[in-house]
């Protein structure tokens, strides 16, 4: 692909068109296939028929949740990879989703919080604490936060948080019953209400993340050089942590802890448009929901009449990519 401004912009436009196609596919595909006309009727000329109800109350929220969660996780991954200069960064691997998950489970199971607007704050708090802890543990000592140290800190923290989460869920059968469908990472629990509640948080995160492009570019040169160039590193870190908190926290509250989308998509974007974060961020924003919705459609179709949850599909696709990245020789280079 051409790396000129026009080429990248045209490519991004094509990616948007592809995303629209995938959105349409997500509305049509499933155990029951619909035609484009059915979607139009359900949206504009609602009759209350079974088809209309399925599309309106199941497929629309599900697709919208996929769009939001995908965009959020992709951007969160890109920001994390940029700020830590770490090719293995992902909200799932670094334990951010596990932090959000624990907070949500605690809010629901122990405090009886019901609505997403109630527990999204817990999710974001959990995400933020996990982010800070992983970064602190991973960056102590010589060489700062190397990829390996961060990934290990994330794995350790995930294990700790996961066992606390399971302790809470094991205390109460109904919490466990909700939790087991949520923890795989699924778009099916999203209702129109949940999506509407999540929208402002994710929108704020997206805006914040997109402003970080040129700062991340300068950070990529190394902290010293970035500081010389006038980047306020501390401020950029705080803004990035806030963006990750908004994006990963809300996405996890909405769709459960989905891993590897945030890992894979920025790498694809980087391969397509080069190392410029001003392009990687918007590309991740468009590519990630495409990937997540495609994974969701695949999950609906492979095990009919049952479904594979989207989190399973992303793990099955993403983990091999993670291993391939690990096997590459120069892990530290980004």
């Amino acid at each position, binding site marked *: 692909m051409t790396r000129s401004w026009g080429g990248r912009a045209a490519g991004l436009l094509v990616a948007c068109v592809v995303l629209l196609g995938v959105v349409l596919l997500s509305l049509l595909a499933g155990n029951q296939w619909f035609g484009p006309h059915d979607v139009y009727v359900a949206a504009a000329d609602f009759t209350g028929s079974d088809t209309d109800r399925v599309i309106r109350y199941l497929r629309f929220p599900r697709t919208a949740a996929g769009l939001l969660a995908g965009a959020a996780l992709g951007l969160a991954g890109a920001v994390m990879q940029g700020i830590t200069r770490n090719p293995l960064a992902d909200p799932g691997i670094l334990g951010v989703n596990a932090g959000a998950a624990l907070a949500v489970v605690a809010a629901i199971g122990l405090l009886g919080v019901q609505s997403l607007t109630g527990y999204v704050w817990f999710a974001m708090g959990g995400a933020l604490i996990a982010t800070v802890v992983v970064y602190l543990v991973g960056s102590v000592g010589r060489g700062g936060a190397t990829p390996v140290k961060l990934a290990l800190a994330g794995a350790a923290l995930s294990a700790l948080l996961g066992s606390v989460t*399971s302790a809470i869920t094991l205390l109460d059968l109904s919490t466990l019953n909700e939790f087991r469908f949520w923890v795989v990472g699924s778009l099916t629990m999203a209702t129109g209400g949940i999506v509407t509640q999540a929208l402002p948080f994710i929108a704020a995160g997206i805006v914040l993340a997109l402003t970080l492009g040129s700062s991340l570019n300068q950070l990529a040169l190394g902290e010293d050089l970035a500081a010389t160039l006038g980047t306020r590193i501390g401020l950029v870190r705080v803004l990035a942590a806030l963006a990750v908190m908004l994006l990963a926290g809300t996405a996890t509250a909405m769709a459960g802890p989905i891993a590897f989308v945030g890992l894979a998509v920025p790498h694809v974007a980087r391969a397509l448009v080069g190392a410029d974060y001003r392009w990687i961020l918007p590309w991740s924003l468009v590519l990630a929901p495409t990937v997540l919705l495609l994974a969701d459609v695949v999950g609906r179709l492979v095990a009919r009449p049952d479904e594979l949850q989207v989190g399973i599909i992303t793990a099955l696709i993403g983990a091999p990519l*993670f291993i391939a990245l690990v096997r590459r020789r120069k892990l530290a280079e980004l």
Partner: protein
Amino acid sequence: MKALRIGPFSTRVDVASIVVSVIACALTLVIAAVSLTLGDYEIPLPQVLNTLAGKGSLIMTDVVVNNRLPRVLVGMGVGAAFAISGAIFQRLARNPLVSPDLIGINAGAALAAVLMITVFGSAVSWLPAGALIGSLLTATSIYLLAYKKGIAGYRLVLVGIGITAIVGSITAYLLTLADIYTAKTASMWLAGSLAGRSWPHAILIGITLLVLVPAAVAGSRQLRLLELGDDLARTLAGRVELSRGLLIAVGVGLAGLATAAAGPIGFVALVAPQLARRLVAERVAGLLAAGAIGALLVVASDLLAREIFAPTALPVGVVTAFLGAPYLLILMARANRVGRGG
């Protein structure tokens, strides 16, 4: 370390290691005795000992011998098995973070076991075989995927994290397929639990230790050579890969069968060898010292798990994670500070 000579035979005796092992064993026995007295109703210690000697009433025998004793024995056994497995892996990889729970071997055994629980019901008879096969398959795939002109410790761990993600998501998927009661059983088991363990579990882990620990100890002489580095070990011992493979198989078998008996109790394999190493003040931990401390950790954690939230008993794995994970984070921070964290 001292040399012990009896006539023509001589062997090296590690005094510190023996002292640590003996103290850990003694503490384990004390805690085990306390565990036997506590439960739905308390039985004074003399009466417990009396019952163990075969002089108790029928109901006492049922509670102590058939109910509480196997649970304590399974706890000791799996603690020792996980810890020795961890010691083997940490020494082979020359990396304190390479332990069967962190690199995904327990997760593989757990997936196989959850598959059997959800598909065939939780019959104990086939669970060990399934868990063993699961752990061996996972270990083999991790080893092959991490192999690249040799094995680097950090690559092993990272590949293990990737494999754990796949295996864990399949396990989570299986849980969504089961009915809620099966899911509860499987989740309880996944957290690592000694609840309801009976004599078959105790016998399983006992046989595992009897067969595999001597093999591990025999292999640990080779281990000392391996620790001198691949090149040197090859010059000195020749068949490095063979003995390494055997040791890995022993380590995987210990972790897999312990998982079969009590679920993937986390962090014991990681923490126990490190504790042993620090207490003995040696560069590497003796397998037996690590095993004794592992047994102590699990039995003590189980006592805590039963008593903290009594009458609701937590799975023991939650307590070991609570104790172990902060230790791991500190360990990493310290390893990082001296520049060995990768």
